[in-house]
């Protein structure tokens, strides 16, 4: 008996549910069994009965929520049998430990859940890997043709130019604690900034973890005592808090794919917008769909209208799932 895709997996209020495996993917509320694509807080939540994820994602969840974040945990290694499906994890290139999840029922379509993914080389995580599938369930955070992310090294160059032009002004970059912060640090290092970089307390444990995993971030100092550090990283929410008042005449910057659009930077009061994204941009998104050539594309969250329209033009069958609860760029 061959199952239809809709009988294998469908969206629920708690997230995507796999029937023959009896598990959820990135569930939004506590469930008995969860498979987690990556450690961002809106995808990886505490309180599940059992969690399967990569070793790194499990470590990150433990760092964030404490060791008792789930009843039990299992490291995803190789293809694993769960109920009547075979499950495997494949690098997504989004953040450290991020994965796509392939679900292969015994009889029925191979379903690939992209999670959040990115195809631009990123020194802090493994590169995205193509996986053959029949149903491709993709994110579409930047699913409009205006999003073409520049080479991240160009953006790092712009940062260093501004720091040289305003040597007396601290440069504060808003960057999410998992992934973006470490990537920005690695980019600044690659662009030639070797001095100490100050980090907000909320970034410390995850930066330490990256270093433990063998990712070189260079000298880091606490932002409460930045010394000579001209470059300071903080979660974006810190910009609206009195924390930022300790810096004299700072240049506020923000590293995000949203910085492509000027109004987005203005709305946040950003002086130096840096277009550095951990998601696929429009050319990568559309190229991925062409490359994988699935029978059908399902769209989890983001700008689904744009991607749906593109699929229609290309003659690719698609449907939006309109999953609520995943942020456009999480934390």
């Amino acid at each position, binding site marked *: 008996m061959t199952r239809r895709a809709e009988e294998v997996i469908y969206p629920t209020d708690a997230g995507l549910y796999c029937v023959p495996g009896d598990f959820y993917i990135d569930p939004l509320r506590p469930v008995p069994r969860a498979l987690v694509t990556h450690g961002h807080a809106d995808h990886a939540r505490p309180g599940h009965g059992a969690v399967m994820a990569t070793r790194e994602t499990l470590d990150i969840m433990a760092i964030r929520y404490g060791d008792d974040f789930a009843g039990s945990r299992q490291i995803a290694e190789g293809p694993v049998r769960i109920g009547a499906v075979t499950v495997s994890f494949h690098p997504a290139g989004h953040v450290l430990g991020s994965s796509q999840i392939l679900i292969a029922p015994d009889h029925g379509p191979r379903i690939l859940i992209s999670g959040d993914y990115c195809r631009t080389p990123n020194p802090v995580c493994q590169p995205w890997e193509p996986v053959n599938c029949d149903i491709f369930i993709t994110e579409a955070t930047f699913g409009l043709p205006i999003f073409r992310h520049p080479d991240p090294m160009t953006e790092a160059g712009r940062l260093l130019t501004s720091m040289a032009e*305003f040597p007396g002004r601290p440069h504060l970059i808003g960057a999410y604690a998992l992934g973006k912060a470490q990537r920005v640090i690695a980019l600044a290092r690659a662009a030639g900034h070797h001095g100490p970089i100050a980090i907000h307390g909320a970034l410390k444990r995850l930066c330490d973890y990256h270093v433990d995993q063998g990712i070189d971030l260079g000298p880091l100092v606490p932002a409460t005592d930045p010394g000579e550090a001209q470059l300071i990283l903080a979660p974006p929410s810190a910009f609206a808090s009195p924390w930022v008042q300790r810096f004299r005449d700072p240049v506020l910057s923000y590293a995000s794919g949203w910085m492509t*659009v*000027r109004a987005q*930077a203005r709305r946040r009061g950003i002086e130096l917008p840096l277009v550095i994204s951990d998601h696929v941009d429009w050319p990568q998104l559309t190229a991925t769909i062409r490359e994988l050539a699935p029978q059908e594309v399902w769209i989890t969250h983001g700008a689904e209208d744009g991607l749906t329209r593109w699929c229609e033009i290309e003659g690719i069958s698609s449907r939006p799932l309109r999953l609520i609860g995943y942020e456009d760029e999480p934390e």
Partner: protein
Amino acid sequence: MKAFARLLERLAFTPARNAKLTILSHYFQTTPDPDRGYALAVLTGTLDLRQVSPSLLKRLVSERVDEQLFRLSYDFVGDLAETIALIWPTDAEARAEEVSLSQAVTVLRETGKLALPGVIADLLDRLTPPERLALLKLATGNLRIGVSARLTHTALAMGTSRSSEEIEEIWHGQAAPFLPLFTWLAGGASPAVALAPFRPVMLATPITPEELAPLDPAAHVAEWKWDGIRVQAVAEGGLRKLYTRAGEEIGTAFPDIIEAMTFEGAVDGELLIRRGEEIAPFGDLQKRLGRKSISRTMLQSHPAALMLYDILTWEGEDLRPLPLSARRARLESAQFDSPRIGLSPLLPFETWEELTRIRAEPHSPVIEGVMIKRLDTPYIAGRPRGPWFKWKRDPMVIDAVLLYAQSGHGKRSGFYSDFTFGLWEGEELIPVGKAYFGFTDEELRELDRFVRKNTVQRFGPVRQLAPNLVVEVAFEGLNVSQRHRSGIAMRFPRISRIRTDKPASEADRLETLKAMLRS
């Protein structure tokens, strides 16, 4: 064009004046000719380019991008030029060598109307998204860069041996790509000076009664400080020009003044709207500013006039080295044939007490204080401390309630420093204005704490506040305004005091402000 695009982008996101200066001066120092000269022309609004209509751009993009995808994108971006710059489908790899700003300007200047769509499309194909945005903003004449001519001149002077006053003195007569100007800035020969040039103006500094007391009244004259705009009217060698105090030409908006300039010389004074003997408020003058052409109806309903207070040249003679006493005598003996041009009268006073009384009772609401000038000094460009003072009328004040707050930039990053305040009308608080200065650093911290503890709702970066805090708002005047819900626009409002002693219910009412408008 990459450097120019980056310059525009950085200026657009940089609010602080000093940071803008750094960015501009760095651009001028590192960009080769003739590109920097064309950029200078763009920044000062002196470049005449063929304008491309939004409908032409929409047509170009509709030939290349799916209509529905474009509409979704435009909805998200909110700006037509920016959407087109981002969505234009070029293969980045296939791009040829960089297009220079000069090449782009030449194309926009010289292409005929029929060839324009093809040429624009070809340029867009060859540019990166930030460059495309710069080109489209140029081509639609919609730059809104937020730098004044004066700021640009100051940036040009940085790192050179020339001052911004010297630049302003030779500015008129120079044109894109400004090669002689840059040669001169680098220490070379002076460029040719134009006929009827702008001459940098002499500015006054503020003074308090305490600072005034030790000065000798007999060594000074006083005039009204008019609430118009400071202009320099120059008629030399058959050319007639009307400049703002920053050297920007505004003659096209004031053909009635140009026509009245039948003299030969350069004079300094206040531009006002005058009906018969009555001088109209600043709001009336504002209706004529910034226009490329003026209708006949407007010329009749809003007739302009000049109130002169100084004379810089007369019939070929440079009078600036003379002391004010001699210049005033020359001004009074000069012949002006038009009723549109008159002199700003000297105020009769023997003691500072007398001047204080005069200042307290101006005969016209279009007076914002008095000017006090030393009789023995020549006309010195810039703002020398001492010879000229402005002594403004005491500001008007009202007690208003804080309604909204937004965080500041640069030195005020992280502080809520931009405030909207309101007055009572019935049981409701009506927003009447915004203020972002006037308070001390200590008061700023107090206001910031208040905002954080009293936020009731957030709209993006704006916080709505519980209406609990009264502030004293000082301002310089009022205008009728249809754009404001209150019907009134304040001039230079600032928070002069935090009135924690006063409950919100005792803040002023909107009627009080309206009564001030009538008085």
